[in-house]
């Protein structure tokens, strides 16, 4: 298993054992965002802002380095900023799988394989991802650095199963070909297709359109 995946269920999450960037500082944009967030909490309760601040870190990293993750040094930064012990930030950052505590590819493919998605064909989605990206195991990053594949539990969108989450966007009703098309497009550097159902489903209505409450309004 590659040493790069720390926080995605591979069991090696609890000890920090990777070289971090040497510096981290919030950009002006992030700073502006932080001011807005901190204003929501009463004085002395700044620690409550730890989740949004970690998100800011991850988004800034995505923007600046093309890899959305939270380096240890940035966690220390957040701890210092919120006047809380660093370990309390490590606990939060490693608890939530949405924070990557090790570098990921440009696109983070999070494939739901929980029962509903699995019944609806997530195996095909996984296979398509592997074929297009060349990634073998979980938590690995493709040779071109574009993709990291993670297996995730239910994303809460089972009605449109199977789901492939790319970064923060849900692609729904996936199958092998739509998965390939999506990833190929990303590979070519094209703008990714609109997130949502790949079969034209309206929100979470039944396939082919609404089946109840179709009568005209009285």
């Amino acid at each position, binding site marked *: 298993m590659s040493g790069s995946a720390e926080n995605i269920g591979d069991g090696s999450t609890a000890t920090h054992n990777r070289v971090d960037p040497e510096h981290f500082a919030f950009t002006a944009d992030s700073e502006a965002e932080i001011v807005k967030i901190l204003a929501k909490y009463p004085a002395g309760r700044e620690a409550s802002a730890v989740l949004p601040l970690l998100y800011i870190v991850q988004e800034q990293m995505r923007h600046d380095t093309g890899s959305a993750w939270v380096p240890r040094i940035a966690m220390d930064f957040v701890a210092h900023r919120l006047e809380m012990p660093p*370990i309390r930030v*490590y606990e939060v950052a490693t608890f939530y799988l949405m924070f990557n505590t090790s570098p990921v590819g440009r696109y983070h493919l999070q494939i739901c394989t929980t029962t509903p998605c699995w019944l609806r064909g997530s195996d095909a989605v996984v296979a398509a991802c592997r074929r297009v990206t060349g990634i073998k195991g979980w938590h690995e990053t493709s040779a071109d650095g574009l993709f990291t594949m993670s297996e995730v539990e239910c994303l809460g969108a089972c009605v449109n199963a199977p789901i492939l989450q790319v970064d923060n966007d849900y692609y729904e009703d996936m199958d092998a070909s739509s998965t390939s098309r999506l990833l190929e497009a990303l590979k070519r550097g094209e703008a990714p297709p609109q997130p949502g159902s790949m079969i034209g489903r309206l929100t979470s209505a039944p396939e082919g359109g609404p089946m109840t409450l179709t009568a005209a309004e009285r």
Partner: protein
Amino acid sequence: MVKLRIDDTDVEVEAGSSVLQACEKAGREIPHFCYHERLSVAGNCRMCLVEIEKAPKPIASCAYPVAEGMVVRTDTQVVRQARRGVMEFLLINHPLDCPICDQGGQCDLQDQSYAYGMDHSRYAENKRAVKDKYLGPLVKTVMTRCIQCTRCIRFATEIAGVPELGATARGENMEVGTYVEHALTSELSGNMIDICPVGALTNKPGAFVARPWELKHTESVDALDAVGTPIRVDVRGLEVLQILPGVNDEINDEWLGDKSRFSVDGLKRRRLDRPWVRQDGKLRPASWQEAFNAIAARLGGVPAARIGAVAGDLCDGESMMALKDLMAAFGSSNLDCRQDGAKLDASRRDFYLFNSTIAGLDVADAILLVGTNPRREAPILNARIRKRWLATSGRLPIGIIGSATDLTYKAENLGANAGLLASLGERAPDFFSRMQDAERPMVVVGQSALARDDGNSVLADAWDLAKTIGALQDEWHGFNVLHTAASRVCALDLGFMPGPGAIDFDAMVDGGVDLLWLLGADEFDTRRIGPHTFVVYQGHHGDKGAARADVVLPGAAYTEKDGTYVNMEGRVQHGYRALFAPGEAREDWRIIRAFSSVAGRPLPYDDIDGVRARMAAVNPVLGRTGLQRFGCSDLSGPCPQLGREHATDSQIGELVADYYLTNPISRASPTMAECSRIAPAALAQPALPIAAE
């Protein structure tokens, strides 16, 4: 108070108690792992399940508050079944490696699995394995054994005040550790070994050495600082293998400082196990008779005024009594117990005691620390201040005059000048008025503030300040001296101080005497002793004192003798012999008694009861163990001859530079050396040049 029924017993407990506490009060033992009475409630192990009437399912009793009329069942089929289920879950991933686990025989999990465990496992899957963590030289980890009770995390965060441990990741992957690997920066880390209910955290220096049932236990008193922590000395054969804290709510709750716990390996190194006599500039082994003769011969021509004795920091009361009497038999009252040169006034007991008492910290509402770093000098007391600070949600005003930092609680640094004491009202008006408004304020003066030329003025100024802010009341004595040496208060009680017209420590070592008897005195630069002074060193370790000695008399360490110790509060306690001193070494008062016969001036006691009777005659407080409480009935302060002179405006230094190396036993301990090497700045400053040995 709330009344409730536990099985068939009615109990009454305070409102806000947990059901578990009520059950214990009713005499029911409730199995538990994560609950610890001195830590916050986590409620995560689920072992403490009980049935409560009208509740649909078993309830975790540690986290459930009592209510009037509640009916609790602790031993039903449902309860037993539920606990069995919990135990089975806990053991799914536990390695069951008891045969190679140091916790075996003293393990909560092992004990409770006898009652609730199954004889087989229903799980065939692989167990999860967790990498061990490095937590420093004292705490060994086998994290696969961890049941994630989080006691250690709560201890570090709440009691020790170093929030460095945490639970990272989640679910199956959750691990307890520091995430970024580093040694714990706590002087109380050994206590985590005690509170870990399984073998995940164990004694690193003592790994794989003994099984608990092989050890002989002796209850005694710690002598490595002036707190007087109760300890249990565990011995096998001729070796002390571990020292564990006793429990005394008035002193240590149930904690023990790392130095006091882990200096044990120093007890068998660098020991003086036979007498030595200097011949042609070199120490050579000798018999007791030769050693005594050498001293007696030298004493022959020396006038009484040129004989002196210094008592060290670890001495028991009996040996100091005997030495004082011996000196008196030779007509000398050149005595001193203050190697640090602290200016103490022994004319009244409350001038040198920690009068508010350690338990008094629990009700104090403002504290001023003057020239003391309690974290280094008395970690247990420091933890108590932190406890009070937490209980007041961090609102307890704590001020520091001196250079102490990082005390594990927020304190206001008022400056390091001793002159502040006399002018606090003008120079720190805010803090001064908070002290004035407090009902039970404390002024705590440390040895660093007293070991100065104007130490007398510091003492008087501190007293005056306590008086001004109203700390001296009939029921509350807010003037406190924080001592660092276990022997100091007893020595002062015995009057081991220069008699009228006699010379003090400085004068003695700087050539004022021809024969100097050092009773375990190692904490000063022995190069100061003049070349013509004949030095008798009586003690247990080959440290600075023995190196300079002309005659070495091998004594007993605190684990090897019955002895009286008086802690900084003035609490009289008896320590007990856990094993015999090595080789020819003997209990110290006996050595002095034996010498007195050789010298032709026999002391009038032959057994320890005789010495103790003599001590009680010298100072009646020593006749009874325990603590006598008192308020302040006499406002007149110490050192009155100084009149209006105030302490000068100069910086107060720090006497205890390194928590881990304050005495000859700890200096002989490789474990303490390692601790000192990696110690954080809060516990040990970068090494100061130490006098060559």
